[in-house]
C-alpha cells in the first residue's frame, strides 16, 4: 500500500499530460483530492484505524519502501502543504497554461518528496531529492522574470554543490559498506566508526544536507530563492520542500544510518543554535515581508536541528513536532504574504499598514501563525518549543536551552514588528481599495490556522498518536 503514495501521483502526472484536450480544473480537483487523501491516510495510519501494509493493495505496486511514525508525520505534512500550495497557486497564477504547469510540477515534487520520505536506501533518497530539486528550480523560474531566474540559478548552484558532496559521500559509503540499504550501511558504518573514510563520508553528507536545509553558514541561497519565487511557489518551497530534502533527510540519516555520537551531536547543536540566533537577528532587520519570513525559517529550522542534536527520545519527538508545526505556520505565513502581495501590490513592509481592516481573515490568521511561531501557549508552536527546551535542560545542555528561550522572545519581537507594519496601524491612502484575496487564499489560510489551534488545544491527543511514537525510531 505504501507504493501507492508514489505510484498514484506518478500515474496522475502521466494522465494529466496525455496529448489532447485537458481540463485544468479536473487536474486541480484530482490533485486536491489526492493531497487530502494522503493527509487523511497518514492520520488514519497513525491512529491505527488502517493498517499501512494492507496486503491486497501491496501486491499491485511493489517498491521497497518503509514506514515509521516519522515518515507518517512527514506524509501528513506533505499532504497539507501541497494542498494549501495547490489552492494558492490556482488563485495566484492567472494564465491557464501557468496553472497547468504549476500542477504538473507540484505533482513531480510530491512524488519526489513522498518517495524520499518512504525510501530506505541512500541512493534512492538521493535520486528523489534531485527530482524535488529539479522541479523546484523550474517552479522558482516559472514566470521567467529576471529576479526569479537569478534566485533559481543561485539555488541550482548551491544545490549542485550539495549534490556533489552527497554523491561523493555515497561512493565512499559503497566503498566501505558495499551497499546503500539503510540497514546495511548503518551496521557497516558502526563496525568501522573510527575509520577516516567513514568520517569523511559522514562529514560530506552532512555538509550537503546543511546546504539543502539552509543552515548557517550555508544559508546564502535561501532568502533569494524564497523571495524571488512566485508567491505560490514560495509557499511550497518554504512550507515543505526545503524541509523534506534538507531537514527530514538529515534527521533520518543521523538517527537511522549514521548513528548519534558526541561529535555529530555537538556539530548539530552548534549549527542549530547559530542558525536560531543568526536567522532571528537577520529577520529583525528586514523590510521585505518574504525575506523576513525566509530568515525566520532559518531560525526555526535551527530549533529542529537543536532538538535533533540533543538526541534524547524527548528531543527527537520535540524536533519532529516542531517540524510539523513549522510546516503549518510557515505555509500559512507565506500564503498571507502572497495575499498581501496580490492585493496591495507590494511586500515592502514600510509601504504597508492597517491591512487588517481590509483583509480581516489574512490579518487574524497571521496573528495565530506568529504567536505559534514565537511559542505562545496554547498554540502548537508553544508545545514543540517547550518539549525541545525541556529535553535540552534535562540533558544538561543549559546554554543551548537559554539560547532557545531568548531567541523565542526575539522571534516574537520581529513578528510583532511585521504585524504592526503590515496589518495594524493606520491604513495608507493607496490601500483604501484593497480587499480580501478570495476563497483560494482565505480557505487554505483558515484551514492552516485551524490546524495550528487544534494541534495546540488538542496537544495531548497529538502527542499520544503522532509525536510520542516517533521516539521508537531511536530504538
Amino acid at each position, binding site marked *: 500500500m505504501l507504493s501507492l503514495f508514489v505510484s498514484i501521483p506518478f500515474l496522475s502526472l502521466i494522465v494529466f*499530460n496525455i496529448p489532447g484536450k485537458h481540463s485544468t480544473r479536473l487536474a486541480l480537483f484530482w490533485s486536491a483530492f489526492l493531497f487530502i487523501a494522503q493527509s487523511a491516510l497518514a492520520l488514519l495510519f497513525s491512529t491505527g484505524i488502517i493498517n499501512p501494509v494492507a496486503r491486497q493493495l501491496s501486491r499491485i505496486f511493489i517498491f521497497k519502501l518503509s514506514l515509521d511514525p516519522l515518515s507518517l508525520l512527514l506524509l501528513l505534512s506533505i499532504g497539507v502543504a501541497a494542498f494549501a500550495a495547490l489552492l494558492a497557486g490556482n488563485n495566484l497564477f492567472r494564465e491557464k497554461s501557468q496553472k497547468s504547469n504549476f500542477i504538473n510540477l507540484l505533482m*513531480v515534487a510530491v512524488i519526489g518528496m513522498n518517495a524520499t520520505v518512504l525510501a530506505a536506501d541512500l541512493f*534512492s533518497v538521493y535520486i528523489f531529492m534531485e*527530482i524535488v530539486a*529539479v*522541479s523546484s*528550480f523550474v517552479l522558482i523560474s516559472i514566470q521567467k522574470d529576471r529576479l526569479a531566474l537569478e534566485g533559481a540559478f543561485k539555488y541550482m548552484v548551491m544545490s549542485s554543490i550539495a549534490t556533489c558532496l552527497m554523491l561523493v559521500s555515497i561512493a565512499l559509503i559503497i566503498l*566501505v559498506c*558495499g551497499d546503500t540499504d539503510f540497514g546495511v550501511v548503518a551496521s557497516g558504518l558502526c563496525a568501522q566508526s573510527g*575509520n577516516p573514510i567513514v568520517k569523511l563520508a559522514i562529514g560530506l553528507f552532512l555538509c550537503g544536507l546543511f546546504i539543502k536545509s539552509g543552515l548557517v553558514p550555508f544559508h546564502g541561497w535561501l532568502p533569494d530563492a524564497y523571495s524571488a519565487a512566485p508567491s505560490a511557489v514560495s509557499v511550497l518551497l518554504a512550507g515543505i520542500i526545503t524541509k523534506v530534502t534538507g531537514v527530514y533527510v538529515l534527521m533520518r540519516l543521523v538517527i537511522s544510518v549514521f548513528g548519534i555520537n558526541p561529535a555529530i551531536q555537538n556539530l548539530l547543536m552548534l549549527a542549530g543554535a547559530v542558525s536560531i540566533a543568526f536567522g532571528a537577528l537577520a529577520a529583525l532587520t528586514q523590510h521585505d515581508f518574504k525575506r523576513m519570513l525566509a530568515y525566520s525559517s532559518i531560525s526555526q529550522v535551527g530549533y529542529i536541528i537543536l532538538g535533533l542534536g540533543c538526541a534524547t527520545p524527548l528531543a527527537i519527538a520535540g524536533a519532529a513536532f516542531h517540524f510539523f508545526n513549522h510546516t503549518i505556520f510557515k505555509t500559512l505565513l507565506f500564503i498571507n504574504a502572497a495575499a498581501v502581495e496580490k492585493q496591495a501590490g507590494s511586500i515592502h513592509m514600510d509601504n504597508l499598514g492597517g491591512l487588517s481592516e481590509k483583509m480581516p481573515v489574512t490579518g487574524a490568521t497571521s496573528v495565530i501563525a506568529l504567536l505559534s511561531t514565537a511559542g505562545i501557549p496554547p498554540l502548537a508552536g508553544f508545545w514543540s518549543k517547550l518539549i525541545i527546551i525541556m529535553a535540552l535542560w534535562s540533558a544538561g545542555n543549559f546554554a543551548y536551552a537559554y539560547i532557545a528561550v531568548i531567541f523565542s522572545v526575539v522571534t516574537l519581537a520581529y513578528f510583532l514588528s511585521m504585524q504592526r507594519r503590515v496589518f495594524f496601524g493606520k491604513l495608507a491612502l493607496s490601500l483604501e481599495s484593497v480587499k480580501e484575496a478570495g476563497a483560494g487564499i482565505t480557505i487554505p489560510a483558515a484551514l492552516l490556522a485551524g490546524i495550528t489551534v487544534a494541534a495546540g488545544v488538542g496537544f495531548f491527543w497529538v502527542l499520544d498518536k503522532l509525536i510520542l511514537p516517533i521516539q521508537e525510531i531511536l530504538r
Partner: protein
Amino acid sequence: MAMEILLLLGLLAAALWTVMTTRLLRSVVGLALTSAVLSIIIFRLNSPVAAVFELSVCAGLIPVIFITTISFTQRIAKSQIQERRRERFIRFFLLPVIVVVAGLALLRWLKIPALMLPAAAGETDVRLLLWNVRHLDLLGQIVILLAGAFAVVILFKEPRK
C-alpha cells in the same frame, strides 16, 4: 598500477583544463576528454556497461548539446577577452594548487591500515539489477526525465502572439 596512476593524472589534467580554459569550446572538448579517460578507468575496473554509458552519454551526447548551445552565442571583443582572462587568472590560479595539496593531504590522512573493505559483489546482470532490485530508482529516472521535459517546455517555449 602505473597505468592506473597515469590515467588518474590524465583525468585530473583534463578536468583542470576544462575548468581553467577561457574558451567555451575548449572547455567542452576538455569535458569530453575527461569523460573519455574516466570511461577507460571504469572499463579497467571491470564495469563495461557503466563505461559504455559514460562514454556515450557524458563524452558523446552532452558535449553535442553544449556545442549546439554555444553555436547560438556571439563572440566578445578581443579586449574583453584579455580582461576576462586576467580576472580569471587572478581568481582561479590557486585552484590547481589547492586541488593537488588537498589530494596529497587526504592521501596522507586516509592511509589506514585497518580499512576492511567488503567482499566484491558477484557479477550481476545490470538489466536484472535494474528491474528486480532498483526499480524504485528506475521510476525516479523516469520522473526526473519528465521533470526535465517540463523544464524545457516551460522555460524555452515562446508564448504565442
